[in-house]
C-alpha cells in the first residue's frame, strides 16, 4: 500500500465517523422532538414568558379648595448587578467599591462605610445579579446615587437597577387622613381611597417579561405591550383649612378633657358637602390618632341632641306649642323615674324646657301625647328616614337603629319616654348632623357627600350632588319654631355661656348621654358622651357642625365639653368664609383719620387693598414699601434695597419677608409667627449669597 492510498483510506474512515456523528445528532434531535417532545413542550408552557402587570399611576385626591390631599410619588428599590459589564473586571470593582460604600454611607447615614463595603464585597463574591441595596429611595436620591462611583458608569455598565414602586403620600399628613383613607394589599380599604379605588386605581398595563438565567425576569421589549391607563382624580368636598381648624380644635379639647375619643363633622348646609371630618382615638401611649371613623361608624345613643326630633313630632302633630307649660325635674313612669340632671327649674314653657334640656319634660310630653298610639311617634322618625343609612360614598357606615312598637325589645311603658330624650336607639354623629342640617336647610333633608367630582386629565367624568332624602321634613311653621328653639339654646339655654358669640348667631343643641358599656349596660362604670350639634350663622345657615366627645374625664356636660371646640370651629370658619359676612362698606373707611394697618410688603398689593377699601395712600416709586399707620393716615416709607445687601424686612408678613430674602439670595431661618419684629442682620449690611438670616416674628 503506498502512502497515498494509506492516507486516503484513513480520511475516508474519518469521514465515515463524522457522518455517524451527524446521524447521532439527528437521531438525538428526533428523540428530543418526538419521544420526549411532550415533556419539553409542557415545560415550555410553564417556563415561557409571562405577562407582568405594569402599575398605573393612581389618581390624586384633591380638596374642595384645590389642595392635593393624596398623591402618588415614585419610590425606588435599588438593586445591583454585581457582574454588570463595567465592573466585570475585578480591578475596576475592587478599586471603586470602597469609595462607593463611603458615599452611600455618608449619603444615607444608615450604615457605616465598612458595613456597606462588606455588603458589596459579599454580594460580589456570591455573584449576585439582582442584589437588593436599598428600599424606599426617592427620585431625588436616585438621581444623586447615579453619580456615585461604579453607578456612574452608566445604565447597564454600572449595574444599578432601580425598580420603581409608587408610594402614596398625603401631603397634609394627618389632615383628614381617615377620610382620605388608604388602600393596601390584604387590608380592608378605607375612606375615599377605598371607595373610589375603581376610579383612582386606573388600569394596569401589561408587559411581557422573560426569565433569564439566574431566575431573573426581564422585560423582552423596551416598551410596554399594553400601556397602563392612569387613574382618575377625585375632587373631595373637604376643605383643607376647615379640616385643619376642626382637627386642631377637636384634638385640643380631647387632650384637655382626657377623653377616650371624639369626632367633628362640618357640613355645608345647602349642598350637603362635608367640609371637614375628624376623628381621634386615645392610644395606649396617650396620644390621639385617627384610627376609627366614629363620625360615620360610631353608633350610639345620641342623648339630648335627639330631643329635636321629639319636639318636632310633637309640634308637627300640634300636641304642644312652644309656649305650652310643662313641669320639669322628674317624671315618673312605671318602674323608673326620669330625672333632670340639673334638677327642677319649675313649670316652664316648652321652649325653656328644650333650652335647658329637661329630660323629664320631653319624656312626659311624648309619653302623654303618644301613649295610646305609640307607633305614631316612631312613624314620624321613620318618615324622616332616621332608621335608614345615609348611603355614603365611603364605606363603613353603621346602620341606625330606631325601634318601633312591633320590636320584641319594645317596652310599652319605658321605651317611648326614653326614646324621647335620645335613648334606646343607635345613631351615628353624621346621621344626627344630617337631621339638624335639614332643619337649617329649611326642611330639605340631604345625604351628605364627600366627593363632588371625578376628573380625568382635568375633564369631568362624573359629578355628584347630594341625594335629597326628603324635600320637606315638616311644615314651615314647625320648622320656624324648631329653629327658634335651637337658637334659644345658645342665646338663653345650656349653650349660652360657651357657644354664644355676639358677632353672629348660632343655633344648636347640647347632648349629654350616658353610654352603655357593651354587655354591662348603663349601670357599669359611668361613661358619658358629650355632644353639641348645630348650625351657623343661624339667620342664614351656611354650615352645620357636630362635635362629639366620648368619655371625657373632667366634667361631662355637652356644653362644657363639646361646646368649646364647637365655638372655636364655628368662629374660625365664620371668620374665614368671606361669603358669610355682609360686605364691608367702603365708605366706612373713607375720610377716616385712623387708617387700617398694613404689614410692610409689596407696594402694588398694598395699594390694591387700600384702593378697594377707599383709602387714599401716597406711595413712592418703589416696589417695596413699609407702611406705618399713624393717627393722621398711612405713612408710607420706601424700602431701598441694593443688590448684595441685607434688605429691610421689618414689619413684613412672612410671605413678603421670604420673598425679599429669597430675591437677595439669603437663607432665612424663621422663628415665631406674625410680623417680622427683628432680623439678625441690619438692613443695608453687605452680605454674601446663601448667608443665613434669623427672622423673629411676632
Amino acid at each position, binding site marked *: 500500500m503506498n*502512502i497515498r492510498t*494509506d*492516507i*486516503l483510506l*484513513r*480520511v*475516508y474512515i*474519518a*469521514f465515515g465517523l*463524522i*457522518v455517524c*456523528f*451527524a446521524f*447521532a*445528532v*439527528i437521531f*438525538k*434531535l*428526533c428523540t*428530543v*422532538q418526538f419521544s*420526549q*417532545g411532550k*415533556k*419539553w*413542550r409542557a*415545560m*415550555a408552557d410553564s*417556563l*415561557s*414568558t409571562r405577562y407582568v402587570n405594569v402599575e398605573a399611576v393612581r389618581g390624586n385626591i384633591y380638596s374642595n379648595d384645590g389642595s392635593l390631599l393624596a398623591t402618588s410619588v415614585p419610590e425606588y428599590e435599588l438593586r445591583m448587578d454585581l457582574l454588570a459589564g463595567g465592573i*466585570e*473586571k475585578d480591578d475596576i470593582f475592587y478599586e471603586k467599591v470602597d469609595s462607593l460604600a463611603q458615599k452611600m454611607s455618608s449619603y444615607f447615614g444608615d450604615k457605616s462605610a465598612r458595613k456597606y463595603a462588606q455588603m458589596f464585597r459579599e454580594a460580589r463574591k456570591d455573584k449576585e445579579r439582582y442584589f437588593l441595596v436599598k428600599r424606599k429611595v426617592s427620585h431625588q436620591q436616585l438621581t444623586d446615587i447615579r453619580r456615585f462611583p461604579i453607578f456612574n458608569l452608566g*445604565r*447597564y455598565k454600572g449595574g444599578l437597577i432601580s425598580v420603581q414602586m409608587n408610594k402614596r403620600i398625603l401631603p397634609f399628613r394627618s389632615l383628614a387622613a381617615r377620610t382620605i383613607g388608604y388602600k393596601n394589599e390584604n387590608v380592608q380599604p378605607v375612606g375615599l381611597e377605598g371607595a373610589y379605588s375603581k376610579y383612582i386605581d386606573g388600569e394596569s398595563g401589561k408587559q411581557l417579561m*422573560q*426569565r*433569564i*438565567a*439566574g*431566575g431573573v425576569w*426581564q*422585560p*423582552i*421589549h*423596551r416598551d410596554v405591550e399594553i400601556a397602563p391607563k392612569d387613574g382618575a382624580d377625585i375632587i373631595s368636598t373637604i376643605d383643607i383649612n376647615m379640616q385643619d381648624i376642626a382637627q386642631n380644635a377637636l384634638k385640643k379639647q380631647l387632650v384637655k378633657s382626657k377623653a377616650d375619643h371624639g369626632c367633628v363633622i362640618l357640613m355645608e348646609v345647602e349642598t350637603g358637602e362635608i367640609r371637614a371630618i375628624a376623628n381621634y382615638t386615645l392610644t395606649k401611649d396617650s396620644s390621639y390618632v385617627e384610627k376609627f371613623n366614629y363620625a360615620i361608624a360610631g353608633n350610639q345613643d345620641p342623648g339630648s341632641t335627639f330631643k329635636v326630633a321629639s319636639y318636632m313630632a310633637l309640634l308637627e302633630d300640634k300636641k304642644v306649642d312652644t309656649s305650652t307649660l310643662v313641669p320639669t325635674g322628674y317624671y315618673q313612669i312605671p318602674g323608673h323615674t326620669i330625672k333632670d340632671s340639673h334638677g327642677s327649674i319649675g313649670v316652664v314653657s316648652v321652649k325653656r324646657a328644650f333650652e335647658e334640656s329637661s329630660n323629664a319634660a320631653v319624656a312626659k310630653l311624648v309619653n302623654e301625647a303618644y301613649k295610646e298610639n305609640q307607633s305614631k311617634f316612631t312613624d314620624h322618625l321613620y318618615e324622616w328616614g332616621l332608621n335608614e343609612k345615609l348611603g355614603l360614598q365611603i364605606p363603613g357606615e353603621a346602620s341606625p337603629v330606631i325601634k318601633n312598637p312591633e320590636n320584641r325589645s319594645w317596652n310599652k311603658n319605658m321605651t317611648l319616654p326614653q326614646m324621647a330624650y335620645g335613648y334606646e336607639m343607635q345613631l351615628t354623629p353624621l346621621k344626627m348632623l344630617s337631621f339638624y342640617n335639614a332643619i337649617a336647610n329649611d326642611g330639605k333633608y340631604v345625604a351628605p357627600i364627600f366627593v363632588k367630582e371625578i376628573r380625568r386629565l382635568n375633564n369631568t367624568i362624573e359629578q355628584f350632588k347630594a341625594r335629597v332624602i326628603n324635600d320637606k321634613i315638616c311644615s314651615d311653621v314647625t320648622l320656624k319654631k324648631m329653629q327658634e328653639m335651637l337658637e334659644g339654646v345658645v342665646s338663653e339655654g345650656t349653650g349660652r355661656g360657651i357657644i354664644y358669640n355676639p358677632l353672629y348667631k348660632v343655633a344648636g343643641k347640647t347632648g349629654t348621654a350616658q353610654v352603655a358599656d357593651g354587655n354591662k349596660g348603663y349601670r357599669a362604670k359611668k361613661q358619658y358622651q358629650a355632644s353639641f350639634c348645630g348650625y351657623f350663622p343661624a339667620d342664614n345657615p351656611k354650615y352645620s357642625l357636630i362635635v362629639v366627645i366620648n368619655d371625657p374625664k373632667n366634667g361631662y356636660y355637652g356644653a362644657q365639653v363639646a361646646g368649646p371646640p364647637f365655638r372655636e370651629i364655628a368662629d374660625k370658619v365664620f371668620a374665614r368664609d368671606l361669603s358669610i359676612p355682609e360686605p364691608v362698606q367702603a365708605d366706612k373707611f373713607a375720610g377716616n383719620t385712623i387708617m387700617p394697618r398694613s404689614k410692610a410688603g409689596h407696594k402694588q398689593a398694598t395699594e390694591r387693598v387700600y384702593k378697594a377699601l377707599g383709602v387714599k395712600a401716597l406711595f413712592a416709586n418703589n416696589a417695596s414699601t413699609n407702611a406705618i399707620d399713624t393717627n393722621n393716615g398711612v405713612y408710607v416709607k420706601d424700602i431701598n434695597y441694593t443688590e448684595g445687601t441685607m434688605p429691610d424686612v421689618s414689619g413684613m408678613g412672612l410671605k413678603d419677608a421670604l420673598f425679599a430674602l429669597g430675591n437677595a439670595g439669603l437663607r432665612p431661618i424663621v422663628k415665631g409667627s406674625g410680623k417680622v419684629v427683628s432680623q439678625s442682620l441690619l438692613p443695608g449690611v453687605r452680605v454674601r449669597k446663601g448667608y443665613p438670616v434669623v427672622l423673629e416674628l411676632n
Partner: protein
Amino acid sequence: MLNIILNKTKGDRWIWLIVILLSLWSLLAVYSSTGTLAYKRGVGTETILMKHLMFIVGGIGLMYFSHLLDYRYYAGISKILMIITIPLLLYTLVFGSSINEASRWVTIPIINQTFQTSDMAKLALITFLARTLTRKQENIKDVKKAFLPIMGSVCAVFILIALANLSTALMLFGVSILLLIIGRISIKQISIVCLAGLILLTGVVFLGPRRKTYVSRIEAFMHPEKADPDKSFQANQSKIAIATGGVFGKGPGNSTQRNFLPHPYSDFVFAVIVEEYGLIGALVLVSLYLVFLWRCILIVTRSPKAFGALLAAGLSFSLTIQAFANMAVAVGLGPVTGVPLPLVSMGGTSILFTSIAFGIILSVSRDIDEKENSSEKKVIIGEIPAMD
C-alpha cells in the same frame, strides 16, 4: 457582474455555494436571536445585525484573498503563526478579559476589538501540523526529528487553551490526533501524545482555575435529575426550543426560546434554527456541513501533494467536528460548552478565522483545478501530433 465574480473566484464551486448559504442563514438566525442581547446592551437589534453583516462580508473578503494565495505559502505562514500564537495564548491567559473566570479574550489596542486567541491558535496548529507531517512523511518513524515538534506543539497549544477553554482545547486536540492518524504517525507515538494530553487534562480538570464549572457541568450532563435546575437551565431551554420547533419549525423570526436561551446567537444558535426551521432545517444544515466535508475529501483525494491533502483534511475536519459538536450540545448529546457553529454563530474572530480556513481549503482546491487544467492542456497538446 455575476460572470465577473464567477471568473474571479476560483476553487470548488460547491464550497463557495455552501459558504454563501451558511452566511445568509447566519444573518437570519442572528437577527432573530439578538433581541435579548440588544436589550442588555441598550442598542437596537439592527446595530448588532450590521456589525455581524460586516464581519461576514469581511470574512468572505478574507476568504477570497486567502484562496487567491498559493497554499504552499501557508506552510511558511504556519510557522510564523505558531511562533506568534504561543506567547499570545500565554498573554491571554494572564491579562485577557475573563468571562465566567475564563480568560479567552484579548483586546487589540488600536481598533479596540476583542479577539479570541484560541481561534487563531486553531488555525495555526492545524496548518503547522500539516506542514510538519508533510515534511516528515519520508522519515515518519524517526522519533527525534519528526515527533518532538509535533508532540510539543500539540501539547503546548492544548494546555494553554485548556486552562481557559477546555472544550475548544479538547476538540482541537482531537482534530490534531485525527490529523496525526491521517498523517500516518505510528500508533505508539499517537498513544504517547494521547497519554500526555490525558495527564494535562487531569491536571486542568482537577487543579485548573475553572474546576468547579467543569464538575457541575459534567454532573448535570451525567445526572440530569440531580442537577440544580438553574444549572441545567441552558440545556433544558435548548431542548424546549428543539421540541417546540417540530418538523417544519415556527418560521423565521418566530422563536420564543431565544428569550430564554443564553447566547442564542452563538452557542445555542442551532437550537434557535431548529425551533424556527424545524427538523427539515436541521437536516438541511447538517447536509450542508456534510457536503462541505465531502467536497473537501474530494480535494484531498485529488490533491497531488501531501501538504495540500493534509491541510484540506485537517481544516475541514476541524470545521465540521466543531459544527457537529455545537449541534451535539444543543440537542443534549454532550455537556454544555461554548463552541460556535462555524460561519453561522455570531462572533467576530470566529467568523474571520473560519473564513480564512475556508479560504485555505479553497486555495488548495483552486491549485488542483489549475494543475489539472494545465496537465489536461499538455495532454491535448501532446496527443495532437500523435494523431497525425
